[in-house]
């Protein structure tokens, strides 16, 4: 009997993902990590089974990166990725060869399941859905219970909805681009760590206290954290540079566009905004920083404005002339534009995934959820935040040796009356 050969699923990169293969270097690329810590140790065989069984449900994740003549594209993997034991530090470098096999990895260590994604696949929001569904599937295999498909957990037996696979940037782009030249931001100093070791300092903070503090300043938790971060960066800059050589201090905040537009995509659908202040114009109190950040974000994060910014990004992708430029020429140009603009608009990211919830049946098995973004190529620090079970985890990652920013940031939180517990991944060798 002749076996019918199934053609492989493939898809072009979404609009935001186009940049990531172009800007990766021999020692850096844009990878982020999401993990859950369960109450009991992980059973690797069952975890592998869960990873294997979810492949039909998440066709936009089980993909590998390939290069065409004009564009990169994503192609279905031949087999689900093998799970691996976690490394000594998060977000170890993902080589081109590894991306050519699969663009995400599944890691486990004791009672923790971690997923590390190359950013071409998805953003924090989409990846969280995948992680929750994978964890739910693992828990149901391990403990034989049925987990309902609520709170971001998808039904593993369903066929994927076409809306989950769409490039929402194309659908929601405005007719006219919103063009907004921005000033360059200050770049944090620091001597790079030898090798590729990334230092991670996690601040464990009671979510309620943080929320109450933000409420006191009349802003959201994201704005409060960004404002405190800006305050610390301002101090560092003041100590390092005379006033006339100082630059604006701006914090890059990713915005999940699923909250603004009716999209259910699991692929990239986020943009960043860069609220900030110029230290040459005077000094700022924390209250003033919170206020100005709140207003800047409110002015920027509207559906109309975001649609205009999406249009700005989508326009070159739709240009017929540019489409026909071979990838070998496109890549260096994209990289040059990114070097000139992409990373210079913010001092560091403060990426907040918000409050995560899990179905009630599953919550007793889960201890904590973590979200870690890698460092950018040119700026050495980054910060990512997620809240689960009333606990907010503030992960500060850095590629430099000195924890100066972390020290100032967490000490400031303590000063403001928020109790902070610190965990660090010290280098063992």
């Amino acid at each position: 009997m002749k076996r019918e050969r199934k053609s492989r699923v493939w898809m072009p990169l979404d609009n935001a993902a186009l940049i990531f293969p172009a800007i990766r270097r021999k020692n850096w690329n844009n990878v982020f990590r999401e993990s859950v810590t369960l109450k009991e140790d992980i059973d690797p065989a069952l975890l592998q089974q869960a990873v294997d069984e979810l492949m039909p449900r998440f066709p936009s994740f089980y993909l590998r990166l390939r290069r065409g003549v004009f564009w990169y594209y994503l192609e279905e993997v031949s087999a689900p990725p093998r799970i691996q034991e976690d490394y000594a530090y998060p977000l170890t470098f993902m080589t081109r060869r590894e991306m050519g096999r699969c663009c995400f990895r599944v890691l486990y260590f004791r009672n923790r399941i971690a997923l590390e994604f190359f950013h071409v696949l998805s953003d924090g929001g989409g990846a969280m859905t995948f992680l929750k569904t994978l964890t739910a599937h693992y828990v149901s295999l391990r403990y034989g219970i049925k987990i309902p498909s609520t709170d971001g957990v998808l039904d593993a037996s369903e066929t994927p909805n076409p809306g989950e696979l769409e490039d929402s940037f194309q659908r929601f782009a405005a007719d006219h681009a919103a063009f907004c030249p921005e000033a360059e931001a200050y770049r944090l100093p620091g001597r790079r760590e030898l090798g590729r070791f990334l230092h991670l300092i996690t601040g464990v903070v009671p979510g309620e206290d943080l929320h109450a503090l933000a409420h006191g300043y009349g802003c959201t938790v994201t704005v409060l954290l960004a404002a405190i971060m800006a305050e610390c960066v301002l101090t560092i800059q003041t100590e390092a540079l005379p006033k006339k050589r100082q630059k604006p201090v701006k914090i890059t905040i990713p915005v999940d566009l699923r909250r603004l537009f009716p999209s259910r995509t699991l692929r990239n659908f986020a943009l960043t905004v860069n609220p900030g202040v110029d230290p040459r114009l005077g000094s700022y109190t924390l209250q003033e920083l919170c206020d100005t950040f709140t207003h800047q974000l409110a002015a920027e994060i509207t559906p109309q404005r975001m649609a205009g910014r999406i249009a700005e990004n989508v326009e070159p992708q739709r240009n017929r002339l540019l489409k026909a430029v071979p990838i070998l020429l496109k890549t260096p140009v994209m990289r040059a534009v990114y070097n000139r603009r992409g990373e210079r608009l913010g001092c560091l990211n403060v990426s907040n995934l918000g409050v995560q919830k899990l179905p009630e049946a599953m919550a007793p098995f889960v201890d904590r959820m973590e979200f870690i973004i890698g460092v950018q190529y040119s700026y050495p620090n980054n910060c990512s935040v997620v809240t689960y079970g009333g606990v907010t985890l503030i992960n500060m990652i850095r590629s430099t040796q000195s924890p100066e920013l972390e020290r100032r940031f967490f000490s400031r939180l303590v000063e403001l009356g928020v109790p902070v517990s610190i965990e660090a991944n010290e280098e063992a060798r």
Partner: protein
Amino acid sequence: MYCVRCGVKLQDGVKACPLCATPVWCPETGEGEPAATYSDRYPIISRQKRLTVMASLTVVLLAAMVACFSIAYNTTGRMGWSFYVIVSTAAFYFIFLLPFWFRDPHPMIFVPVAFLSLCLLLLLISGYTGGRWFLTFALPLTAILAALTIGSIALFRYVKGGTIFITGGLLLLIGGSCMLAEFFEHLTFGTAMFTWSIYAAVVFGLFGTFLILAGIIRPLREYLDRQFFL
């Protein structure tokens, strides 16, 4: 257990605060190791692939040089044309391939090495052909090029800011170098002095002066910034 300096709570068993490195001493918990949050598995960062490629390229080039020499020697009994192939290949190797042996090649080392190799190549060819153009033409020209290249790399690398002045100054120097080059051409080959180089010098000179002026006159610089930003 809290850090006395930062006020943050620390994990049991840590010896120093991860934020400020203040030593922690707590008589109640005693000596113990904190529970590791990560495994001790390090990724293997191999430079094996690049070294293998470099080694095989070296072997292939060496083999090609030996083959050329033996063919030329067997057919004509002399080195003949194989001399040019061998010295050019060697120069190519030192100029373009040598830096790839190293993980982080420093331009201030490898650019001078490249120019030295180029100089040596020209000296050998000049000597082999009996040409009398090395000392008065090839050497000064290479030296000028080397000085310009190394100087601009050093300035762009180590001087912060002032890009517009550096670029302007370099353009002026390039204009001047064109005239020098034609002067050496005249000295060696007896051609007419300053026929083409004067045009090049004027164009480079105008651009260079314009840039330096733009650096001095702030409104002009800001206008250019607005017009040409990417």
